[in-house]
């Protein structure tokens, strides 16, 4: 820790994002003087080469509940109750299907530090999918910190494997180009998004330095490879774009422990609040809204929720979340 870099700290060096912003400005200026045709022609060509992200939702009747939330000291029981209130996992996963479960496993942190999805929540989802007849259940995430350390210390590796899932992370994940609406070309996603018929998003509720909170929509950052940092520009719009792009079969929000500050990585136990709740839903905006209320935030105060609702991705009306009470 003694060998600090020697470069003059006052030397101006633009960041990659500052450079990107300059390039965008240059591109806009070029389009304005007649270069637009070529610019957009190239963009169409690039997007055509990359497959679109599938829609993993299952048809539901208008009368079906959009979400249900359960409280209690046992995270697995909360998962079972919440999913059962939506019709059970059998309503979402059919025999022989492959299921991707996407937790937040981004950080080299213990479950008590509330930076990653609780392993008991993920393990119970694996068991429910297996019981519903899934032939393959994969738990995967592209971690921010070292992937082996993140998957191990979070408890997710052992819990998910013990429950019968394959766990893929780091170099075991294959990245492929993909077309993401509203984003520039060059983004990559994990190939499991194309090989699994069903996808369950399982975020943890936590503070985020940029967006104030992160729940489900921002959790999709963990399926993106190269270029994902660009999405931190205009964070509210970018999070809503992710919500529009990735349409999961189910969102299961882990509020067993909630990180109230210093997110997304956290670390301090004094920043963590024990909430002991889990919600499951088919409406990602409702799940988002329920999640942030577990942090004591008003959903209407968060730009990415407002933006997502405006785009018709769901509703933040908390009366639509069925409260199952405490077990």
């Amino acid at each position, binding site marked *: *820790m*003694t*060998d*600090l*870099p020697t*470069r003059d*700290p*006052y030397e101006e*060096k*633009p*960041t*990659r994002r500052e450079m990107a912003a300059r390039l965008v400005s240059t591109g806009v200026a070029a389009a304005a003087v007649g270069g637009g045709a070529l610019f957009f022609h190239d963009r169409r060509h690039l997007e055509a080469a990359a497959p679109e992200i599938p829609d993993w939702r299952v048809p539901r009747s208008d009368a079906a509940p959009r979400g249900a939330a359960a409280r209690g000291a046992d995270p697995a029981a909360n998962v079972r109750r919440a999913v059962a209130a939506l019709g059970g996992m059998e309503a979402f996963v059919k025999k022989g299907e492959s299921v991707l479960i996407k937790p937040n496993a*981004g950080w*080299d*942190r*213990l479950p*008590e*530090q509330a930076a990653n999805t609780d392993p008991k929540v993920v393990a119970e989802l694996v068991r429910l999918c297996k019981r519903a007849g899934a032939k393959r259940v994969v738990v995967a995430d592209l971690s*921010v*910190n070292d992937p082996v350390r993140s998957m191990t*210390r979070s408890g997710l590796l052992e819990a998910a494997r013990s429950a019968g899932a394959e766990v893929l992370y780091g170099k075991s994940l294959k990245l492929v180009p993909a077309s993401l609406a509203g984003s520039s070309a060059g983004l990559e996603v994990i190939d499991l998004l194309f090989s699994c018929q069903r996808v369950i998003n399982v975020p943890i509720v936590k503070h*985020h*330095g*940029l*967006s104030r909170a*992160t729940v489900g929509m921002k959790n999709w*950052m963990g399926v993106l490879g190269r270029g994902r*940092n660009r999405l*931190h520009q205009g*964070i509210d719009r970018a999070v809503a774009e992710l919500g529009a792009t990735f349409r999961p079969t189910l969102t299961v929000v882990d509020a067993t422990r909630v990180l*109230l*500050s*210093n*997110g*997304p*990585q956290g*670390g*301090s*136990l*004094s*920043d963590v609040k024990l909430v002991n709740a889990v919600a499951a839903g088919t409406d990602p905006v409702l799940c988002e809204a329920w999640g942030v209320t577990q942090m004591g935030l008003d959903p209407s105060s968060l730009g990415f929720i407002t933006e997502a609702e405006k785009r018709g991705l769901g509703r933040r009306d908390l009366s639509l979340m069925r409260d199952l009470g405490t077990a």
Partner: protein
Amino acid sequence: MGALARTETARYDRDSLYEAIDGAADGYLARGFVSAVMATYTYAGAAEISAELHRFGSEAGAGEQSAGERPSAARSVPGFEGAESDGTVLLAVRGRDYLKLTSLTPGPEAEGRLVALAQAAFQEKTR
């Protein structure tokens, strides 16, 4: 300071900070972040501490970043000016440098190790 081993030191600059701390990087960049070195120290019983030493363009930037990341239960560390800890995280500022230590295995011995590591880091740095 009692550590048995240390991982290789990773270095980050304004371009690469996202690779280490993802979305939290924006706050650092806004406060004049220049560069950082990071490593993980291992202790007896497989206890570990993550160490981050961030250099900012100004003392004010380093101080603001530390204040912004102060854990809710942090208190001053006796005999260690400018350092605060809640037992799992220790933050300290020296000039333009901001030191952030996080216990990856919280427990009764964690705070003593955090303080010892912080003192050693700043002592070595000023040598």
